[in-house]
């Protein structure tokens, strides 16, 4: 067993674009579900809009990288409006069904051959980095230490990702601790009661959907920044992985989703390294090394179930809240 490789790969999971992308998306879900009570099972769709919006703006329309980010954000707002206008007046479960379906429709639209010139179909998109890398303030060279050593391009992605995450966390902190956040949490508890106090519940839910959606699509952009956009990523299981990160950390918290994303990726990195090695060193009989690397997804599923059963408030959640869950 090559423990140093296992350790170094695991350590990289602590601080990677994927971790930050998950943290951003989970933050969006925290806004949707944890604070506003909106059941969004289409976070992968929001992430896809971020990633494709960014790449297509640059590749097809020749935009600058920052213009690509703006296009993605506008697109995610439009997506929220399309999802929200018909469903936010209905009971919560309708949003869940509509979001899961909408995310699939999006993915299939990106995947179909009809728009291959724009979306790249099954090959996805790549080679949109020139404008972004031209704006890189880091001179060519290596940065960091040990397992966390990055070249200047990787460094630029990480710094921008981290900055985005810090800004989103700060915005969420301000929002949730404001009177606006109080209304939002009230809506989560009982929207009719909030309506009876003269608040426009529909408008608040729409705002929450849009803000969480923007966080999700920023996650998609950060995911796409280092290399490419691949349609195989934005599948329903991505949605469930982000949910896992959210529930792990604590749905109704702000640092929980970030912590959950970190734990999720560190565990993923650890298991995907250690399991195949266990097989090759004969410690895991009866399975092949290919099977071993998929076992980790089974473990994620089992972990999610155990979590929801034994610690539904998540790691950072308030135990007290649970005493009152109906």
């Amino acid at each position, binding site marked *: 067993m090559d423990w140093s490789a296992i350790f170094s790969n695991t350590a990289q999971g602590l601080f990677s674009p994927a971790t930050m992308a998950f943290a951003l998306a989970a933050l969006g879900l925290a806004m949707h579900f944890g604070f506003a009570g909106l059941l969004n099972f289409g976070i992968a769709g929001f992430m896809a809009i971020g990633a494709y919006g960014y790449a297509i703006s640059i590749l097809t329309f020749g935009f600058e990288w920052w213009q690509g980010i703006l296009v993605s954000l506008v697109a995610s707002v439009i997506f929220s409006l399309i999802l929200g206008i018909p469903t936010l007046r209905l009971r919560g479960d309708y949003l869940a069904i509509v979001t899961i379906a909408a995310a699939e429709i999006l993915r299939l639209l990106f995947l179909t051959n009809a728009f291959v010139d724009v979306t790249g179909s099954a090959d996805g998109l790549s080679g949109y980095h020139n404008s972004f890398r031209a704006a890189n303030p880091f001179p060519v060279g290596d940065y960091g230490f040990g397992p966390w050593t990055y070249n200047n391009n990787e460094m630029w992605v990480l710094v921008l990702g981290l900055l985005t995450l810090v800004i989103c966390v700060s915005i969420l902190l301000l929002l949730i601790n404001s009177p606006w956040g*109080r209304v939002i949490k009230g809506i989560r508890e*009982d929207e009719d009661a909030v309506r009876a*106090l003269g608040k426009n519940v529909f408008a608040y839910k729409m705002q929450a959907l849009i803000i969480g959606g923007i966080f999700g699509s920023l996650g998609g952009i950060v995911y796409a920044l280092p290399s490419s956009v691949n349609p195989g990523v934005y599948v329903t299981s991505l949605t469930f992985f982000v949910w896992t990160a959210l529930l792990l950390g604590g749905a109704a918290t702000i640092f929980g989703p970030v912590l959950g994303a970190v734990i999720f990726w560190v565990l993923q990195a650890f298991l995907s390294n250690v399991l195949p090695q266990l097989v090759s060193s004969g410690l895991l009989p009866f399975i092949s090394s290919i099977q071993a690397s998929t076992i980790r997804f089974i473990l994620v599923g089992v972990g999610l179930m155990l979590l929801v059963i034994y610690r539904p408030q998540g790691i950072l959640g308030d135990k007290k809240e649970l005493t009152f869950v109906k």
Partner: protein
Amino acid sequence: MSSSANTPANPAAKTTGLHIGEIRPGVAKVDPIVTIDGVSRHFGGLTAVDVEHLEIPRGAITALIGPNGAGKTTLFNLLTGFDKPDTGTWSFAGHALAGIPAFKVAQMGQVRTFQLTKALSLLTVLENMKLGAKDQRGEKLLYSLFPFLWKAKEAEIEAKAMELLKRFKLDTKKDDFAASLSGGQRKLLEMARALMTDPVLVMLDEPMAGVNPALTQSLLEHVLGLKKEGMTVLFVEHDMHMVRHIADWVIVMAEGKVVAEGPADQVMKNPAVIDAYLGSHQDDDLGTITGRITLPKKGKK
């Protein structure tokens, strides 16, 4: 327990002279705050509400009574925009309300509570109260990001909330989750929260249900206090003690229709009212259906 044990020696002074002309269902009021015309609501084949004409007097306490299923809650829902009638028009303080969404009705000052209490469980008692406040611009998305724009107002709101909580004896619970309150305390919280909106008309759906009898008296005082402060109160209640004690005007519904109205003492003697209650409860003792009042005639048809 007999009703006399609960009733103070001198019941609250009643507001009189509310109606114009002979008392009958749908009688015109001197100064109506709510006017209802031809409002009906059907659920499948069932007619839940069918009110030809009804006026609620301003500045008075009006009780809406009637057997279970009479359509009282449905009428509340229709008036407050939580449900839409199949036909009819109604107005509040001169504004036609048909098609106006519930939150706008509440903003106009017509605020309700619910029969099944809606405490916001995972908000603290104080947060519940603050949510009722009006004119907090920090509730707007863009303002909310800049605390210095709303902190001052927030302090004002908190002071007002604490004052109300003290009045309702909930001030010691301010930092507890609303979920930890007893059923009766939640009713009180919901009422106090409604008052945070500075309402013009307060509509209470069974405010006494589940409230500890020891609190009954102070709740009555609260409702009477609202009238003193110039608010209009409309409440649904099965407790006849409360109705007799504080209601200036009583409206009786049965099977969706207004079957009688008038001052409390007169309505209780109305044969239509006795019929309405006995019609659906032939075998019950009237006292147990309507609360703790003993009626002059015991339903001998």
